[in-house]
């Protein structure tokens, strides 16, 4: 883990992967432009495998922009341009070897506002496996749906009403349904863009527990505005400010002993 904390040069990224076997994603010199406006300035960031990395920072600092680069969700925004290099397991996700659709099957995403499809709970979870052809028979789908809902901690609440619309659930349940939908395609990475910002504290606590369980199997990147949440769920934390990464490190170190003055100011609530 200490290796990850060190800045790695862009052309050494692949070598670094050998050196650090638990490196999952490494971003080098990522610039993002919305039209003429630059939102990210040369982001260098490494994300470790099977752990939770949280991105914190004041509003408009580029956390969400960055996380949306990781599964190329920015592609659908008109006038958005991404430069630099992002490697997933050593493959450039903006290169021609990986297609955006393929990438998004590997890198799932949970959004800020719960956005279940206006379909049944079952179809919400089964949709991803269905379009990717991960299962063929009905009982295989049943199996995936049950397993995903169980891992998302929602199975016991919805097992008797799988045919009801996903939108009939409460906000916290909807967000867990979205997590179940994301893990149903067995991605390697799950991106969470402020997944609890629309939820009450109890639902938030459930999601946080869930995130903690999920890191056994998935690499998780979470954007959050809550410093407590970052401290609770993540192992590594990156502090973003004005489109740049100010400081990356182990969560404990960032919150107890930040190296940068700006990080110190932000986590103690002096700005942001």
């Amino acid at each position, binding site marked *: 883990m200490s290796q990850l904390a060190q800045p790695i040069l862009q052309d050494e990224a692949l070598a670094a992967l050998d050196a650090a076997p638990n490196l999952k994603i490494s971003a080098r010199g990522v610039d993002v432009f919305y039209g003429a406006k630059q939102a990210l300035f040369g982001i260098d960031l490494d994300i470790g495998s099977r752990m939770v990395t949280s991105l914190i920072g004041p509003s408009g600092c580029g956390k969400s922009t960055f996380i949306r680069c990781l*599964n190329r*969700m920015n592609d*659908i925004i*008109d006038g958005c341009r991404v430069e630099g290099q992002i490697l997933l397991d050593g493959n450039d996700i903006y290169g021609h070897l990986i297609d955006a*659709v*393929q990438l*998004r*099957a590997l890198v*799932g*995403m*949970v*959004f800020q*506002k719960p*956005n*279940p*499809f*206006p*379909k049944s709970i079952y179809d919400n979870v089964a*949709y*991803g496996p269905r*379009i*990717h052809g991960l299962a063929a028979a009905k009982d295989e789908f049943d199996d995936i749906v049950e397993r995903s809902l169980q891992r998302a901690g929602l199975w016991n609440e919805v097992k008797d009403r799988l045919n009801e*619309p996903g*939108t009939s659930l409460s906000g916290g349940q909807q967000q867990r349904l*979205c997590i179940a*939908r*994301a893990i*149903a*395609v067995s991605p390697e990475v799950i991106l969470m863009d402020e997944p609890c910002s629309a939820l009450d504290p109890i639902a938030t606590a459930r999601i946080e527990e869930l995130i903690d369980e999920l890191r056994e199997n998935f690499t998780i990147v979470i954007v959050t505005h809550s410093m407590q949440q970052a401290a609770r769920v993540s192992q590594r934390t990156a502090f973003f400010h004005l489109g740049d990464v100010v400081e990356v490190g182990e969560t404990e170190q960032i919150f107890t002993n930040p190296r940068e003055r700006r990080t110190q100011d932000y986590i103690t609530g002096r700005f942001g």
Partner: protein
Amino acid sequence: MTDMAARAPIDTAKSTGDIVRNSLKRRYAAERRFKFYGLTAVCTALAFLAIMLGNIVYKGHSAFVQTNIELEIYLDESVIDPQGHRDPKALISADYGGLIKASLRKKFPDVRKRRDKKALYKLVSGGAAFELYQMVLADPALIGQTVAVSLTASADIDIFNKGGIDINLPESDRRVKDKEIRWLETLRTAGAVSIDFNTRFFTAGDSRDPEQAGVLGAVVGSTLTLIITLLLSFPLGIMAAVYLEEFAPKNRWTDIIEVNINNLAAVPSIVFGLLGLAVFLNFFGLPRSAPLVGGLVLALMTLPTIIIASRAALKSVPPSIREAALGVGASRLQTVVDHVLPLAMPGMLTGTIIGMARALGESAPLLMIGMVAFIVDVPHGPTDPATVLPVQVYLWADSPERAFVERTSAAIMVLLAFLICMNLAAQILRQKFERRW
């Protein structure tokens, strides 16, 4: 006074509560006024609608019933079928009118003068001979017998019998003269005059005789035309909207296309008719007066409406649904087909039905491609000559015969009923597709 107080510089001693309380009366008065204006507008609109509908129903309801005159007719074999073969070809050329005339002469033996006889014969419709022929054709065994046949009365007698002609007018100002009234009274006392539901109005095509004219030809023509319009414009419109909204890059070309679609939606419909005349009839040589060409022209006219409404419906689908689908790795087409289209479908159907309703009521472009012709036969296919309901209304409204006035209004009612059915169908479809989230 209150205005003065409101404009005065804020007195620091006055609390916000006082200032607000003082302005409340004025604010609520403005609200009440606004509500009143809105209510007035709604009531005015409803009143106009009621006047229009009331007028149409008042004028047109009498067209749904028809006066029939029952006559004892001797189906003389020597007139109908002198050879006795019962050959349909022979049956068609027989003088059925003569039989009806003979029956009328027998009923009124005191009518001697040539001119009076002519007037007497005009009690029944000129089409009555055809009715008699069809009866005989259906049952040749009737030949040689005397049968009581209910025959359609002529238009003027029909209107008089239904109370449409003021008997107090001087005789010279009336279409129905005193002697005709006397004959009718004689028949009435004999129980030979009846008013029945006018089935002919719904089963016949157009005719020069108002009492023989029906809307079926126009209804079938409208249906065929609209089916072709729908089959062309709905898929094309939705495809175009989906491509422009979901796939096309946003650049100058798509901007130009968008501006042009919006302009096309505002082009007067007769221009589309001229285009259809030049392209479909003169260049491609498609048949004149055919629902096929009418449908093509109306599809051109309807397309922009459907595209604009469909794009608006697509735009109103929350982006979070697209993100959700893309986020689990759906391709853009899968995202559109599986999630965006179902959610946009109600809005698209609304746009389509607005376009179709406009197409149903359109007559100007169809005049250009010859659908204004006088067509007696009910069309059997999209290439048969036909007319449509609004054009039929136009044709009848243009006819001088008094009896066409009520038929015009009745045809408008049929048109409105057609429209209501279409809207109902759309509403049902909408509810079927509607998903809440």
